[in-house]
């Protein structure tokens, strides 16, 4: 755990001062109607606590699944008219969505949602902290990496970059976004300002003059972003298409990401997280559609679906990808829960996505097929998915800079 954050960054607004307002700023300031090449956008969602992939995307065609989980398996999809609100929602005859993810079924059907199964980090750690750290740094097994994959994945800019090109929703900047490119943490758009104008100017000067390089660079980024977001903050926001975000932090995060993207202020990367997936005890209620996992998945599914609806046509530029540090044991534990496991599933959604399909080779759940005879084995590396999105969607070809020491194998998701 060495110091990770100590990067000297470019100042964007300094360039404006010199009379060379970059494109994103011109667009933001003058709301130019002229068509301009719209940037591609990547949104990453982290499910902290290790989501139980096997109960999220249910391998209902696998007999072993039901043997391993006598009390917490999601029932097979109902056949014909005999539909049980409680059963998995069939996707392809083998996999099905947890019933609380019903909001995502239309996205899958319209081929805007792809699922990758048996995917994750090859590092064997079952520590939440280490596994999250590895996934966010993008370098499993390497602790010395001092920046995050999203920061490294930002394409090289010809013009001074927007101060909000990388935005994370939350009170702290996630590991994924740390690095030399400007990246801001934003708890909420409303709170993202100094409430007193006079004081704001004085504070700004103090931080620009400050001798501490870390506080100086964070301070500068902050004030640049604050002034850029001023106009966004002042406009009331109504989600489009009747999208209804669920109450709670995660829904709020996605709504504000949508608002930022639609404001054309130069967002290229956004990050949000949702915690509470560590279900060692009573993962499901009496039925699959009740209990802790169901509640969380309902919030999660509704938020993703609302984001998709709200974004509308803009989804053509956007890909959203989800991840969680590792999966959970294939067998249930002694308390109707699951312990820390290995491979998991990832969701990839957006206009450019070739959805409606479950990607990845399924390794099976028979004892000899399991990783260390207990967990779902890994057949895709999470960097295969992220790497493909970075290269093909964001158009950043320097993948060995983003995922050093690893060559991602593309699955053909976009």
């Amino acid at each position: 755990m060495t110091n990770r954050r100590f990067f000297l960054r470019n100042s964007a607004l300094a360039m404006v001062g010199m009379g060379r307002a970059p494109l994103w700023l011109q667009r933001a300031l003058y709301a130019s109607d002229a068509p301009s090449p719209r940037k591609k956008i990547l949104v990453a969602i982290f499910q902290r606590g290790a989501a139980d992939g096997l109960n999220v995307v249910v391998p209902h065609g696998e007999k072993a699944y039901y043997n391993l989980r006598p009390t917490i398996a999601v029932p097979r999809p109902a056949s014909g008219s005999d539909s049980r609100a409680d059963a998995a929602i069939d996707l392809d005859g083998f996999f099905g969505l947890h019933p609380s993810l019903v909001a995502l079924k239309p996205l899958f059907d319209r081929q805007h949602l792809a699922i990758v199964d048996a995917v994750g980090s090859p590092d064997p750690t079952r520590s939440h902290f280490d596994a999250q750290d590895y996934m966010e740094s993008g370098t499993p097994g390497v602790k010395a990496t001092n920046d995050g994959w999203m920061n490294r994945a930002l394409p090289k800019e010809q013009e001074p970059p927007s101060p909000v090109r990388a935005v994370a929703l939350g009170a702290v900047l996630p590991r994924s976004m740390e690095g030399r490119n400007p990246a801001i943490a934003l708890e909420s758009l409303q709170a993202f300002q100094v409430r007193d104008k006079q004081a704001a100017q004085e504070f700004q000067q103090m931080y620009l003059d400050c001798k501490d390089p870390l506080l100086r660079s964070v301070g500068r980024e902050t004030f640049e972003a604050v002034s850029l977001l001023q106009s966004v903050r002042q406009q009331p926001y109504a989600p489009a298409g009747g999208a209804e975000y669920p109450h709670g932090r995660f829904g709020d995060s996605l709504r504000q990401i949508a608002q930022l993207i639609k404001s054309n202020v130069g967002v290229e990367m956004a990050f949000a997280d949702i915690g509470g997936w560590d279900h060692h005890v009573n993962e499901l209620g009496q039925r699959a559609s009740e209990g802790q996992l169901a509640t969380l998945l309902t919030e999660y599914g509704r938020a993703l679906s609302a984001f998709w609806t709200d974004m509308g046509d803009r989804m053509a530029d956007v890909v959203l990808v989800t991840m969680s540090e590792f999966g959970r044991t294939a067998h249930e534990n002694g308390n109707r829960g699951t312990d820390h496991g290995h491979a998991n599933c990832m969701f990839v959604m957006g206009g450019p996505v070739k959805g409606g399909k479950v990607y990845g080779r399924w390794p099976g759940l028979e004892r000899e097929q399991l990783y260390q005879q207990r967990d779902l084995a890994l057949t895709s590396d999470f960097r295969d998915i992220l790497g493909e999105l970075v290269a093909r969607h964001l158009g950043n070809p320097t993948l060995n800079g983003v995922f050093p020491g690893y060559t991602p194998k593309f699955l053909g998701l976009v």
Partner: protein
Amino acid sequence: MRKKALVALACCLGLSVLSGVSPYARKKVDPSRQFHKLISRNQRIAHALDRLTFGPRPGDIEKVRAIGLKKWIDRQLHPETIAENSELGQKLKILDSLSMSSEQMVQNYPTPQVVRLMVRGIVPYPSDPGRRAMIQKEVQRFEARLKAGQNPNLPEPPRPLNELLSRAEVRSLRTGTPQYRMAAFEALPKETQDQVLVSLPGGIRQALFTAAPPDLRRRIELTAGPQQIVSRDLQEGKLLRGIYSNRQLQEVLTDFWFNHFNIYLDKGADRYLVTEYERDVIRPHVLGKFRDLLEATAKSPAMLYYLDNWQSVGPNTALARRARKTRAERGLNENYGRELMELHTLGVNGGYTQKDVIEVARCFSGWTISNVQRGGTFVFNPRLHDKGQKVVLGITIPAGGGIEDGEEVLDILAHHPSTAHFICRELAQRFVADDPPESLVDRMAKTFLKTDGDLREVMKTMLNSKEFWSVGAYRTKIKSPLEFVAGAVRAVNGDVDYALGLANEVALLGEPLYRKVEPTGYSNASEEWANSAGLLARMNFALQLGNNKVPGVKVEVAKAAMDLGSPEFQKK
């Protein structure tokens, strides 16, 4: 030359030169040398106050100088020799849940389970009107959720305000300054007051709260519900102690060790167990033996609940075998076993395997809680214990054991060199530098092993080191949100009437107290706190505090806001 060119090219392309290492590594001025350069005599007192307290109050430097720095540190290392601030006692008195046992808390601030028993007529409603009002509110919420039909045991529903009061009375509660509304409220007859409190809309209640004397504030708080009280008392207690306690190092260490053995307040029964945990498990041991602290946490209902061990059943017990037949849900749970080694003792690289996790979990099977919903006490239940042989970190624990299996694991872990190193590195990271020099950590670890994990001796080794008093340490860390908020109030000698407003600010800054979900706790590396959301929140807090806008706190310094929000004040 060639290498230089390669590096330059690689940087342009965003390539990494060394596999796995980012090219943007920190430009270092050989940091180890910074830990050899000592700070000046004048800086030493300020440094000690920065690191061993929640920040200096005006006049503190002079006070320490008068006592002598060495002697002051020695006193802080023996908190029992320091007379506690009587003002703190006064302020804590109203937060009565802080001095209750978990069982008393359940009686006085009933859990939802107990409230349900009251609704069913099995347990009587409390006779005290304030507490009855609290239950009334709770039942309302409960009923609203259930949308249940008629129930003869329900307390009377609250009457609308306009039935209780005249139009003029309602108007005077609705309008004007909090002080004005407060006077209007106090003019009401005592019996009406309690009824009115239950019926008040949120806005008026909030206004009254800001102007109310402590006992009325308590009556208002009661209507927010029993669980709210417990959580508020905890947060307020932490801030008040941080701001007012004379035993500053003890409070800093309590914060450190609670975070090391973190528990999330909102996980089920833990809502009623954390108070006792911090008061009786953490605080008394922060300068004692690590082994005692470890065992106290291992046997605390709070930890047993948080990391699920109370539900863990040995796989070879009759109970588990029966459960398997009936497909009931009892068996081994690895959660505590893993975090005990990864986070509490050895550290993630401390040399244990997945097999060890399972073996340790087997040793702790049967460590459970009796009466978990009624306060809860630790018990060892031999029927849940796996009596087979276990091998932990290569050491055989023979078959046939009972509670001593787990205790032996604690012995093994508490005295393990990996534990010594891991604990000392964390302490050094908190007190010395985000990336503390290995030489210092090694010396602290040596003390740890030599003194049977005596935490006071470990602290002494650290405080006697040149690294602690070096340029590499001095003002190189960024205050945590709690340190910043408590430190700001101390710096301007603020008078805290109640600390709820401050606690809310700490949460806004990114460190909700007692609410870190993950067992990792908050990072000890302070650079985590340097980000745009946090900085803005700090500046806004500084403005609020400086302009006397933080509810419950009064400050007299006029120009404080700009200083408190400045980059300099974020550091320690």
